[in-house]
């Protein structure tokens, strides 16, 4: 699950249930606000945290994300309506990604749905959408309870996730199946997550038990807390767009809404899946993208958000987010460009005080590979060229 853009102007963000635990590990003491909750930008150093996530196990406080416990006989129908995730076909223990769309088929947000039992689901969203959810509940036998502030959420990911869980005595937590139960006296729900390309597990437990679980893991000396800056590198390497940064969620004042296809996420809202909100609108928009979100690799040390993107010497868009990627040894960035610009190579304006333009090239990410495979399956033309 991807964090939404930070709310830079928020006053006095609330501490997440895990805040007392993670704050003790923050050497940089660099915090920001996400959805009104505290979130660490950096604990020790971005490079170290990134490396740990790639080769060891990273621990992320996922408290700022919005979480809903969805119960009731029509919970699956409700989630199948609210999101494009295939909630109706999920078996207990399975999770799926999807999108929340508005009636016209534009993306409101990303969504992850996990089925914990026959009539209990967990819905995770980058940001709370209380009104939209309250409206979607009407007329259905379902209760969607916002549990964001009541539970602590700890993301464990990286190649050594299983080791961390075992070290903490959480062997019964599966990396592939969502489940809920009592783990060593603590009521816990666990579900697989993907942060970028990294598989992991999200543990959700009552906020009163936050320190208990945290201590169990930390005492074993495995796992390193990871902040937003390192997660941003993982996100861009995986090619996952960030709400509020790479696209503005539909319905926000002044937002220029984007379709799943325009964000390269058409595989998360297939038109042949059961009905979901906005599918009829999406059908009208399918195959007619106006913009495209491209993952670009730039021959430079730095870039700047908002930098102009050129194709064949014509301005076609702008950079929406960028980082230095240790894996690619280059700047990688998302660019929102005109859908008509079908080239593989672009140029972006250099960051002042430097002048001129920098060469940029599209690269394949996990997300774009999924989109490409989906487009192939659907038999639609794709303009992706390696």
């Amino acid at each position: 699950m991807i964090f939404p853009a930070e709310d830079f102007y928020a006053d006095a963000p609330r501490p997440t249930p895990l805040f007392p635990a993670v704050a003790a590990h923050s050497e940089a003491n660099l915090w920001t606000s996400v959805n009104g909750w505290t979130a660490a930008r950096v604990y020790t150093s971005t490079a170290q945290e990134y490396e740990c996530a790639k080769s060891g196990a990273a621990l992320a406080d996922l408290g700022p994300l919005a979480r809903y416990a969805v119960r009731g006989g029509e919970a699956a129908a409700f989630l199948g309506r609210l999101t494009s995730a295939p909630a109706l076909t999920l078996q207990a223990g399975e999770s799926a990604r999807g999108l929340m769309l508005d009636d016209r088929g534009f993306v409101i947000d990303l969504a992850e749905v996990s089925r914990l039992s026959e009539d209990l689901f967990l819905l995770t969203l980058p940001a709370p959408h209380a009104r939209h959810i309250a409206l979607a509940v009407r007329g259905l036998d379902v209760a969607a309870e916002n549990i964001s502030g009541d539970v602590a959420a700890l993301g464990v990911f990286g190649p050594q996730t299983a080791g961390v869980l075992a070290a903490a005595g959480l062997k019964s937590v599966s990396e592939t199946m969502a489940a809920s139960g009592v783990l060593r006296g603590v009521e816990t729900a666990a579900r697989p997550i993907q942060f970028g390309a990294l598989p992991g597990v999200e543990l959700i437990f009552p906020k009163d038990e936050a320190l208990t679980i945290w201590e169990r893991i930390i005492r074993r000396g495995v796992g390193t807390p990871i902040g937003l800056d390192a997660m941003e590198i993982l996100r861009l390497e995986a090619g996952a767009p960030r709400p509020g940064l790479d696209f503005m969620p539909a319905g926000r004042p002044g937002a220029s809404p984007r379709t799943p296809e325009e964000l390269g996420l058409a595989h998360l809202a297939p038109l042949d899946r059961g009905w979901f909100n906005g599918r009829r609108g999406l059908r009208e928009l399918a195959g007619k993208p106006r913009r495209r979100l491209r993952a670009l690799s730039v021959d430079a040390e730095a870039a700047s958000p908002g930098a102009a993107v050129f194709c064949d010497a014509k301005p076609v868009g702008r950079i929406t987010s960028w980082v230095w990627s240790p894996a690619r040894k280059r700047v990688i960035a998302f660019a929102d460009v005109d859908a008509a610009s079908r080239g593989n190579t672009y140029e972006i304006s250099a960051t002042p005080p430097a002048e001129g333009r920098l060469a940029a090239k599209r690269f394949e990410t996990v997300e774009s590979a999924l989109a490409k495979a989906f487009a192939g399956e659907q038999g639609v033309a794709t303009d992706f060229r390696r």
Partner: protein
Amino acid sequence: MNDASKKTADKKNPHLIEGGIDAIVIGSGVDGLTAAAYLGRAGLRTVLIGAGPEIGGRIAVREIAPGVEGVDGEHLVTVLDPEVIADLELYRHGIEFAARRLDTTYFFESGGVLRFDGDLTQAALLSLDDDSDREALEAFMGDVLETSAFLRPAFAPGGYPGGGDAHQRALEKSLGQASPEMAMRIRKYLFATADDVLRARFGEGALRTLLLAETSLRSGASPFEPFSFMSLLRRYAGEAAGLQGAAAYPKGGAASVVTALRRAAQAAKVDVRAATPIKSILIEGDKVAGVTLLDGGQVRASIVIAAVDAQQAFQEMIGPQFIDIGLQRMLTARRPHIASARMQIVLKGVAQDDATRRNMMRRLVYAPSPEAIASAFIDARAGRVPERLIVEAVFPTALDEGAALDKRQIMSVLAHPLPFDAEPDAERREAIRSAILDSIEMFAAGFSGRIEAEDLRLACDDAQSVHASSGAYASKPDILQQWALAAAVSGSGGISGFYFCGPEAQIGAGLSCAAGRVAARAALRAYKKGAA
């Protein structure tokens, strides 16, 4: 088992699946009958299904007192769609107007009386003494009739802004081609309160009061709110008996329109089934597939037109799991506050003097002072019964020879604004009854002594009689809100083969049938395209 008994057994079989049908129309009101007749005439095998025992929806003939029948629903025709009359040959099917352009007599709180000619273009015939008022009224009516005629497409179902189809494009094109003067006038009229426009034209005079009452009648928006002037434009954009803005009385009342439509449907070989409640509309994929009846049976067809209220059609029959959240929000966010009430009163004796007899051949309107109208809207919105009401009255027994009674008269009254109640108790009904009678006494002193019987009918009674949602016939909000809702419901939630022509698809009140026509034509276009 012989054939007849086998057929009877089949009809009782609750799990019967019936096919071989092209189109199903749900709801046997005027719009349902219109849609079914259009489909039938185009050669589609059409079934019209109504939940109630009678065909005609809320417009029904009912015994309002021993031996006296009255017509529920509407007592005048002001916006009957001329295309429907022509296309369905309603004149051939029996519709006939007893009065085509009713003059109106306005009574004021001050005791003054004014007469307005039934032909609005002849406003100079108004019994005004003051020449400047006469000139101001002529100029005003000229502007208003011209503007409302220009805006007529915007008030037609499917034509409003946001309708998203050919009608909308045509409307946008015509607005784009409007002269600068017309464009400026429309802009002014669109955003203005009715009171602002009328005060600027007529100052504090009786004409302002009169037109404020006309604007407010049946509207959920107070004439002191923005966009309220559009209500008057919408009323004058409509046609009755071929005359713009006229009020007409059909022989037999509004029920004769139902009769003519029913004959048109029967002539088009529509299979009309009353007392057949529908449980749900079948959706398969993104397409409509038919309906499930309350007894468990199914009727399958690739076209379903719902001529019931939107709450019923979308929320109950289709179900929230198949409709977009935005549409559901629009439907559930509506909370009607204002409604009108109908009262049919049987009066003893017949009028002796000529003046009274002449007035009985007219439409009578009691126009309270602007302050009283403002106060009435405030009271009604707060759930209180206002002291003074706008009253529109006609005498069917005087207008229509066929309705004449022996030494008695029927007075049909429409009173507005009243608080909307989903389930009014006896006390509330009594308060409404008293307020209506008190308001009538204001212009017909001593009339209460001649009352032999009376029948009060509230919006919720109309809804209950046709198994509709309680707020289905409450007064509608301002035109802008109506446009937004009508555009949303006419989009039919994007379900292929499903069309909607319930009360929410119509802008404003009155018996129109245009929504049924538009829905049927859209269905036929899609059907022909599919067949091709």
